[in-house]
């Protein structure tokens, strides 16, 4: 990570390397730029939502090296050299991920604002625990608030995705 130039502004700028949804990017960011703003404003990936911006709501959840984090609480410079997955990178070759398909099948999307964060938290859960209990799902999604309060169908969708993935793998 290199400092770009000290142009006498009070805030310094740095060139950082991010791998976002598999694509390598070099972006110049201010020292105080948040990861969520680089993704949305710098890279145009507006699937990642902003709401509370203080780590309460989880709508800005992305996977940092496979682990869910609130991208409003990560300075972009801290993500230098790391891999980010946003909701735009979840589908592969226009094929929806099992979690995304289950959200459609179980009508787990109401207004949709929390959905990207929910999908990423759920996807990370299924990678670390392919056969979660309902309690596991609720705990994994506890940092993602749905103000439509559509949690019942969201939990159903994650459990359905787990079942589907397990049957596909022949477990």
């Amino acid at each position, binding site marked *: 990570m290199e400092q770009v130039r000290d142009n006498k502004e*009070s805030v310094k700028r740095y060139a950082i390397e991010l791998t976002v949804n598999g694509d390598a990017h070099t972006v110049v960011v201010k*020292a105080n730029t*948040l990861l969520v703003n680089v993704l949305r404003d710098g890279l145009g990936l507006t699937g990642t939502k902003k709401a509370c*911006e*203080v*780590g*309460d709501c*989880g709508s800005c*959840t992305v996977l*940092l090296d496979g*682990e*869910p*984090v*609130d991208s*409003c*609480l*990560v*300075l972009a*410079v*801290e993500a230098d050299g790391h891999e980010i997955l946003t909701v735009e990178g979840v589908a592969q070759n226009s094929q929806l991920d099992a979690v995304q398909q289950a959200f459609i099948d179980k009508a787990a999307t109401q207004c949709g604002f929390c959905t990207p964060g929910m999908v990423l*938290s759920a996807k990370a859960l299924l990678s670390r625990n392919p056969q979660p209990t309902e309690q596991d799902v609720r*705990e*994994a999604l*506890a*940092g993602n608030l749905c103000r439509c309060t559509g949690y019942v169908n969201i939990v159903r969708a994650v459990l359905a995705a787990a079942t589907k993935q397990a049957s596909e793998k022949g477990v």
Partner: protein
Amino acid sequence: MLAGGTDLLPNMKNDLTAPTALVSLKKIQTLQGMTYVPGKGVVIGARVTQNGLVRSSLLNQKYLSVSETAHAMANYQIRNRGTIGGNLVSAIPSADLPPILIALRASVTLEGSHQARTVPLEKFFTGPRCSVIARDEILTEIAIPDQATTGSAYIKFGLRRSGALAVVGVAVSLIAEGMHVEEARIVLGAVAPTPIRAREAERLLTGKTVTEAILEEVGRAAASECKPISDIRGSEEYRREMVGVFTKRALRKALNLTTSDGSRKTG
């Protein structure tokens, strides 16, 4: 100083603090990881995250209560970023890790431009968001010394199961043989400007064989020793009452009289 940023960044956003520069601790390798050092105990790097504490096989084996405490904090995303060092240095009265670590006799190492020093965690906090750490120091590691403790527990009372600060938090560690308590440490969180030892309650328990009547008496003593404030999460009177309740529950858990969720074992 920036570690996980889960406290600092919201504070900056809410204009509670406006640092002109941040120093990231990210690349200091020695702040990572957790090991057992003979003679020193379990040594935890300051940058170990709360999820790191939850997953640690070393803690799960030696001090499950610390893992359980970390597990009850915030939510998954925050636990992936928030660090043990940050939780201590931010010195918030309702923080969950200080009570259980004080109960387990932990100490912290502070390093700065002068010689490194080790401070018992019990002596670390001086007030809300205040501690003995100097401006030029960082907290580098937390050590839980080898001890004869037979059981420990932290029970948090929050208004929700997740993402809630403690209204009351009670940590205990005991050296007991069956129901006979030889030594007890009881630490209360969120009910005073800093975590506090409930020394009268500890004294009442020491050398006793635990009965319901003794637990009742110990709970009452702890309730009278705390100095809670009234705020949006609970009144002073309510907090005091809950200190009594949760002291008893934490003791039952440390004595293995209850299941892991704090409900009483039957039979």
